[in-house]
């Protein structure tokens, strides 16, 4: 599903460039459940943004579902984000003036899906995350956990192949945090490729495969080498 080769990301800040990623090689199979951990500033978010086509690597190759993303024009990247990728953030990023249902409909609005279908799909998504009764509530009328569940419903409503979560439980207490984790794990069981960046070892430990970043490099990967080779044609894996 995902193949990264020699991914580098350099931020030009003043005189000294910041090398957030320094050659990451990674391949992730369809339907896998991967956690990315590591110290602050190690490049986890940077990596996740590149995986989500929100950011482009400075160097290296990123193939998503066989498609080289470096060649894609901006408008095509938007389509990739729209159809292939769901994003969940630490700060939920719901639009305050829209209701829960309205927030969930948003990706479908930009995809040009007709209103009736949007409503129906939003309703089903709300059902999946257990918030049917809150459809008409605005974010400030919802708890943090509920907001994150709305954000999850929004992330998956376009039925993407990959769900990316950047510290999805970072702003939640342990109860709603584990609710959120269980929810996205259930989606992984249904076939969604799940990649979670987290500081919480409990959350990270639940993944089938744990990747550890340090200083812009993958320093640990629990994937058994045998499986790694078969899933990843990339010859060299750190």
């Amino acid at each position, binding site marked *: 599903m995902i193949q990264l080769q020699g991914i580098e990301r350099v931020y030009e800040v003043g005189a000294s460039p910041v090398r957030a990623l320094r050659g990451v090689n990674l391949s992730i199979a369809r339907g896998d459940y991967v956690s990315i951990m590591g110290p602050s500033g190690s490049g986890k978010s940077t990596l996740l943004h590149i995986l989500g086509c929100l950011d482009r690597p400075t160097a290296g190759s990123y193939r998503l579902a066989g498609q080289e993303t470096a060649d894609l024009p901006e408008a095509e990247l*938007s389509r990739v984000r729209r159809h292939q990728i769901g994003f969940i*953030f630490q*700060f939920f990023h719901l*639009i305050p003036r829209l209701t829960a249902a309205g927030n969930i409909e948003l990706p479908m609005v*930009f995809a040009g899906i007709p209103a009736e279908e949007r409503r129906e799909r939003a309703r089903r998504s709300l059902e999946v995350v257990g918030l049917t009764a809150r459809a008409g509530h605005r974010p400030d009328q919802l708890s943090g956990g509920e907001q994150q569940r709305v954000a999850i419903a929004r992330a998956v409503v*376009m039925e993407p192949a990959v769900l990316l979560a950047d510290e999805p439980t970072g702003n939640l207490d342990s109860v709603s945090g584990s609710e959120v984790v269980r929810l996205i794990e259930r989606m992984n069981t249904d076939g969604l490729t799940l990649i979670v960046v987290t500081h919480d070892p409990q959350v990270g430990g639940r993944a089938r495969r744990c990747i550890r970043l340090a200083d812009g490099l993958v320093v640990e990967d629990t994937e058994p080498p045998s499986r790694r080779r078969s899933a990843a044609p990339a010859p060299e894996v750190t």
Partner: protein
Amino acid sequence: MNLLDLFRFATGGLHGHRLRTGLSVLGVAIGVASVILLTSLGEGARRYVTGEFATLGSNLLILIPGKTETAGLAPLVSTAPHDLTRQDAEAVRQRVPQIRRVAPVAVGTASATAGARSREVTVIGTTHELLAIRHLKMTSGRFLPEDLPDAAVCVLGARVQRELFPDRNPLGQRVRIGDWRFRVIGVIEPRGTSIGLDLDEVVEIPVDTALRVFNRTGLFRVLAEVNPNADLDAAGRAALEVLRERHAGQEDVTLLTQDSVLTTFNQILGVLTAALAGIAAISLGVAGLGIMNVMLVSVSERTREIGLLKAVGATHAQVVAVFLLEAAVLATTGGAIGLAAGLASGRLLERLYPDFPVHAPEWAILAALVVSCSVGVIFGILPARQAARLDPVEALMRRKA
């Protein structure tokens, strides 16, 4: 992405900041209202003036002493080497066969006194033919006599009669005009203003008498009525030729016709209206800056929202469209409100000054809406592009303001 959804989403963005949104809408509304009102006034002035001249009748020649380069403005500038005289008028009548009536006109002001009552009046010295040429009607008595161009008789305008003889029949009564005494022989029906002269405020006396009263030899103008089936231009040229001959070969008389006057005034007042519209357009421009400001603030406040839109797959073009539409909605709402306010205050003016027709020209109404919408789009481009160019990662990572 369908337009209605885009519209819903864009207008949703305006809901959060009622006051800010309201103020920028107000700015556009004021701009549009002033465009409408000022052009209404300009257009009203044009209609008023042209309406005045339209009552002249299309077969009338007006001969005015003096020659100006811009035909039509003659009454304003007049440097005549030769007077236009009674004899000139007679010559025109006799030598231009297409002309069937001629009325010489001398004008002055004097005080008119009857008994204890007195008022300033405009005195017109003319002949009996003015009655037919200007389509005047008598309330009582008769108009000036045909054969006595120097009799001491006068005809009163409706208001002059009301004020000098409020409670008695003026016919046969004496009126003193300046130092001269006149006998009233008729009263003209109320008529209202025509070519700048309120005929209700006028006293008509025989033309020779008038020239003596005002101690003049020259006429104010000569009105000549051409046979309805004759060529007006040819008659005009013939009349000018007669006068040129009489004035030692000098072309020192200006010829006006209803057409030429109307054309000139239409031009002048059209320019005036455009100038007023231009002034008002400045306020629209200022309103546009207001919209730009509001949109820029909105973009910077909604950075995170823009980042999110991109994360869920909105394209560059879609983000531009959202913000452009938002600006256009702001501006067009303002435009619609301004249009309503402009038209309403035009109505009010009309109510207050019924004589002065305020008229919003159709083009101004259409233009106000088109312009206000484009003001929104033009001044929205910069903020919208700024929004679309935001880097999604940076936009998302920005903490709450």
